């Protein structure tokens, strides 16, 4: 009876059901199940990181050996990767923790990671501008309404709006708390029920496309 996909579906059903029951039963061993499974997940996830590293390094190693397009960047990646790991290990041995103020690891963090991350995030400002420019066209009544609301909120969320009229930020706050919230709660309700549906389909084995 239990063949092929049957086995994982059966395991999913049993584990899922136990987890649901354990939500209502604080007594041992049920009460600790959630915590234990979370700990297990952390351990497994830690090991799968090796798979990730293998995939990343493997791909770039192949690019270098086969001299495929832009293979120079792959050298930068592998050098950066090994360099950071080696410095992290050396500094941990030297200073007890790699996050010490004096360590070169912190230096890499402060002068490589911080600016790189900030740059990527700040791109958002530019992309929002170009996307808004394209998307906000008063094509019909709905779109016009959206356009006007967007302009009010954009002004009301910055001190400039306060200077135009003290009522503008208040109106913005109302838009955020009432119409915005109403729509969001509606979508949120649908999402929660959708998530419930996905979970039940997986538990009952109706949904199997995530299985191999």
């Amino acid at each position: 009876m239990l063949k092929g996909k049957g086995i994982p579906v059966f395991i999913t059903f049993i584990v899922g059901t136990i987890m649901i029951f354990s939500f209502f039963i604080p007594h041992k061993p049920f009460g600790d199940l959630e915590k234990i499974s979370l700990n297990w997940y952390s351990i497994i996830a830690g090991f799968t990181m090796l798979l990730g590293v293998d995939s990343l390094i493997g791909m770039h190693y192949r690019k270098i050996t086969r001299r495929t397009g832009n293979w120079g960047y792959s050298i930068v990646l592998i050098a950066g990767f090994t360099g950071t790991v080696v410095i992290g290990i050396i500094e941990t041995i030297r200073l007890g923790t790699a996050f010490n103020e004096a360590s070169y690891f912190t230096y890499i963090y402060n002068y490589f990671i911080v600016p790189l991350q900030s740059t990527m995030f700040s791109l958002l400002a530019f992309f929002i501008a170009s996307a808004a420019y394209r998307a906000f066209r008063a094509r019909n009544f709905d779109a016009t309404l959206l356009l006007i609301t967007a302009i009010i909120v954009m002004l009301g969320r910055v001190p400039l709006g306060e200077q135009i009229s003290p009522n503008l930020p208040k109106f913005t706050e109302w838009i955020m708390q009432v119409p915005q919230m109403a729509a969001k709660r509606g979508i949120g309700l649908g999402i929660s029920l959708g998530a419930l549906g996905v979970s039940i389909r997986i538990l009952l084995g109706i949904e199997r496309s995530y299985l191999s």
Partner: protein
Amino acid sequence: MNIFLKLSKVDRRFIYIFIALVVILPLILKPKFPVVPTKPVQDVYDYVENLPEGSKVMISIDYDAASMPEQQPFLEALLRQLFRNKLKPILVVQWQLGAPLGTTALEKIARETQAIYGVDYINLGYRPGYVAQIVGIGKEIRDYFKTDYRNIPLDSFPIMKNVHNYNDIDLLVGLEAGATYLVWIEYAGGRFKQKIALALNAVSAPDAYYFYQSKQIIGLVGGMKGAAEYEALVGKPDLAVAGMASQSYSHLVIIIFIILGNIAYFVEKSRKAKEGGK
């Protein structure tokens, strides 16, 4: 007429240049903008003001360098207020790459206010597995944080003497760049009735209005604007207030572009209608 048509097909890089200019120029020229606090921010400030001396405030660093401009000014303003009111911050980190940011701000403000490590404040650092940890602190914080961020046992610090679980923490402030706050609300707030205040990046702040409205969080500091309001409330305007001019002008530029884009759209539409009529 022609100019509007060109405008409707404007190269996106043209928009980028304008945005860059209006962000950078105010940062150099520093025009002054008055900052008026909104209610969600005022609520956080008032709640902290009314905490009795010696109350413990847990601060969770759930952001990294990318959100630094939005979160760091608020963190510093909050720490200033805490130390000024003799409240005791306990710092925890859920985003590994945020650890140095939390430590830097804490040490900086502590030095300014001459607060003593282990007595007036403590830094517990990062531990992996945030869901298990947030659930676990409901029982005993030492199950997850046996030591502080420099591996010194918790029990050797006077500040941690009576701190075991959420019962002993008067307020939790989460500085959030992602969705970690949902876990704080679900477990710390829902299960253990912990009072929570949140500071979120502007991009995700609208999502947290749910919880503010349903009083699951006591207040909400949204983005750099929220941080600027908090700086103004604490009475020490700093980086976030300085950023307000950039933000105001960039919003204005986006609005102008949207209006121009619409004019171009209508001009093009009317021209097409005319051509169609021929």
